[in-house]
């Protein structure tokens, strides 16, 4: 016996070297050897989920809330295909994941063997990169590459497919300390000449505006963004993914822009003369009608991914690089003098005027529970706790984005790019594993919650501080809103009144749960949920036909907002 290890043991050693503490997934024939190796060690905890989609979203929530790589392990065939939605969700939001899939033995690959799918082929367009490991000698280096690719540059999910015979074969184990790929070298430092030019343009702009995307969170550049905004008195809006990258309570904050953005943010985009985009990608949910987007502005675009630049709109000053490094360099040469501040007053006053004309608002009621009221109240009651808030997808997601004030990054977890119903609950659980001392609130729609509620079993097992608040309108509300506004109120297939009793359902898992139907009980119920030490599900029956406003209809310019 020399220093040879089996593939399964190598797998464990590599994960330890990468500092992995939690693995999410479900076992199966093609990864039973890996599970046997997991059983024999204590450093890595395996979290047994009830569906592979839940597992990948948990790894994703783990990653979003910490910035570390989330890791999932699923079996071949159906295990792998179940994971695909989770992988695509992470891909669209640039979240670092490594997903391991079991595969049939190498000699059976291509034979339509039992539980064989070509998962590398299936996930080619929704992973940053993927690998099939054909030889145990390549296993350690491939895992090293997978983690490296997942977390560097523009992060993303990487899939590693490990055939069963590779898990059982043996070889010497050696884990490389450093890695160099001749074909992969992200650009981190921006072009200094271009940064100088941009500094000039920023100093000269009369109505500059910061456009803050999720890349600011990824690159940990929120402090630099704030410094830039404050020193030059530049107002800032965020995208959905950028929420938390700029403090919502800050006087220069305009909130979120786009389809359900604030009036002031969307108007500021249409009137600014310089738009400084950092770590964002001009998604159609932000731009509205592209040809009428920011018609008066020159555009600066700082992004680590060259393909994001000038993809949807023409950029005047592109800078490819890491947001934090580029901003540091920019801040070191920017001059901020009183003249700039004086000029800014007019611009900030105009924004103030827009804000006072059409602030974010809703018509409250004593008869029914308004969802916005619930979120505002939760915001008030939990401010001091600095919690993590995870959402599903739909109207409730937008109400959280609008009415919960996030002042720090990595506190708001939401599926932005793919808009995956069923993301929020497992992602919240994943965040709880990564942040055991923090409260995690999952704001769920009744429809979305039903897409992954099997993960209540994980909550029940681990008694996490994950608190689920269902904003229950018994509708696929966001789609119903479109039907109401644009399809003559024909509510085709959006009424979901037939649904489980979420309270009894939770209780059947041994989880405390309660229902609220009366506005006067909301505060008491929220307080109880917040103070409860352990998982809790609160089903709040809200006004069924409440809409999210403002709203820019799909394809319309940002200036054409429906306000109420």
């Amino acid at each position, binding site marked *: 016996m020399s220093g040879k290890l089996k593939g399964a043991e190598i797998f464990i050693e590599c994960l330890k070297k990468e500092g992995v503490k939690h693995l999410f997934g479900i076992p199966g024939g093609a990864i039973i050897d890996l599970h046997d190796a997991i059983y024999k060690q204590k450093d890595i905890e395996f979290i047994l989920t009830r569906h592979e989609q839940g597992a990948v979203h948990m790894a994703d929530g783990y990653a979003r809330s910490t910035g570390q790589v989330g890791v999932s392990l699923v079996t071949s065939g159906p295990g792998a295909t179940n994971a695909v939605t989770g992988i695509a969700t992470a891909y669209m939001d640039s979240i670092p994941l490594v997903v391991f899939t079991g595969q049939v033995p190498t000699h059976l690959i291509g034979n339509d063997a039992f539980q064989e799918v070509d998962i590398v*082929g299936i996930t080619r367009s929704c992973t940053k*990169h993927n690998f*099939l490991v054909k030889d145990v000698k390549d296993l350690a280096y491939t895992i090293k590459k997978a983690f490296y690719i997942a977390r560097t540059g523009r992060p993303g999910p990487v899939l590693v497919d490990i055939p069963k015979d590779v898990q059982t074969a043996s070889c010497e184990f050696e884990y490389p300390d450093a890695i160099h790929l001749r*074909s992969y070298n992200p650009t981190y430092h921006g072009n200094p000449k271009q940064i100088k030019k941009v500094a000039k343009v920023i100093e000269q702009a009369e109505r500059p505006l910061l456009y803050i995307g999720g890349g600011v969170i990824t690159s940990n550049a929120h402090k630099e963004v704030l410094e830039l905004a404050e020193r030059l008195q530049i107002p800032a809006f965020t995208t959905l993914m950028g929420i938390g990258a700029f403090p919502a309570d800050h006087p220069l904050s305009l909130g979120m822009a786009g389809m359900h953005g604030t009036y002031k943010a969307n108007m500021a985009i249409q009137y600014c003369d310089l738009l400084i985009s950092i770590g964002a990608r001009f998604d159609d949910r932000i731009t509205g009608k592209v040809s009428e987007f920011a018609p008066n502005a020159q555009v600066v675009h700082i992004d680590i991914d*060259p*393909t994001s630049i*000038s993809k949807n709109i023409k950029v005047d000053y592109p800078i490819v690089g890491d947001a934090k490094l580029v901003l540091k360099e920019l801040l070191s040469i920017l001059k901020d003098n009183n003249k700039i501040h004086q000029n800014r007053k007019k611009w900030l006053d105009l924004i103030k005027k827009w804000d006072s004309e059409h602030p974010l608002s809703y018509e409250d009621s004593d008869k029914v529970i308004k969802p916005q009221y619930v979120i505002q109240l939760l915001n008030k009651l939990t401010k001091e706790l600095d919690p993590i808030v995870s959402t599903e997808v739909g109207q409730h997601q937008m109400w959280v984005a609008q009415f919960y004030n996030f002042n720090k990054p990595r506190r708001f977890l939401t599926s932005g790019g793919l808009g995956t119903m069923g993301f929020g609950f497992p992602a919240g659980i994943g965040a709880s594993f990564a942040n055991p001392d923090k409260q995690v609130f999952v704001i769920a729609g009744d429809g979305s919650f039903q897409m992954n509620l099997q993960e209540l079993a994980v909550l029940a097992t681990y008694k996490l501080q994950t608190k689920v608040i269902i904003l229950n309108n018994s509708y696929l509300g966001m789609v119903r809103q479109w039907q109401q506004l644009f399809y003559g109120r024909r509510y085709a297939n959006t009424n979901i009144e037939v649904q489980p009793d979420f309270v009894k359902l939770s209780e059947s898992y041994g989880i405390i749960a309660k229902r609220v139907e009366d506005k006067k009980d909301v505060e008491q119920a929220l307080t109880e949920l917040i103070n409860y030490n352990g998982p809790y599900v609160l089903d709040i029956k809200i006004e069924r036909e409440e809409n999210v406003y403002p709203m820019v209809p799909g394809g319309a310019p940002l200036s054409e907002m429906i306000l109420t």
Partner: protein
Amino acid sequence: MKRIFSVIVENEAGVLSRIANLFSARGYNIESLNVAPINELNLSRMTIVTEGDENILEQIGKQLNKLIDTIKVIEYSDDVPYVEREMALIKMHTDSSTRAEILRIVDIFRGKIVDVSQNSYTIEVTGSSEKINAILNLLEPLGIKEIARTGKVAMSRESKQ
């Protein structure tokens, strides 16, 4: 606009499908695609002829670069003078009435007859795609049986100074 890209890639399993997938997933056209290993350790060179407006071509270049297996992307344009060649094999029906004419055409185009049978010639011809189109036009009425074209390969010209 037509554009030729040369892409130097790691000669890894699946790299061709990553590139093909990129084009189909993003709705780009591939007019021709040619791949073969090159001298250096474990590298392949692909030549892709594609079409699109300036924006799309710019995106294609960037997207090709973004693939983890891509080492280098060369984009040929007026600023980057280049030579391009394509090879075709053309199998012709022949009989006593056409043989002489076929040979004459092949000669003009500096092609070669690489295989002969009772009633067929197989012709090899190399040149720009236009040249190959031209010979095909002339041969067409004489009875083409089968055509195989490689698609373009390209390389930048060295500066003459």
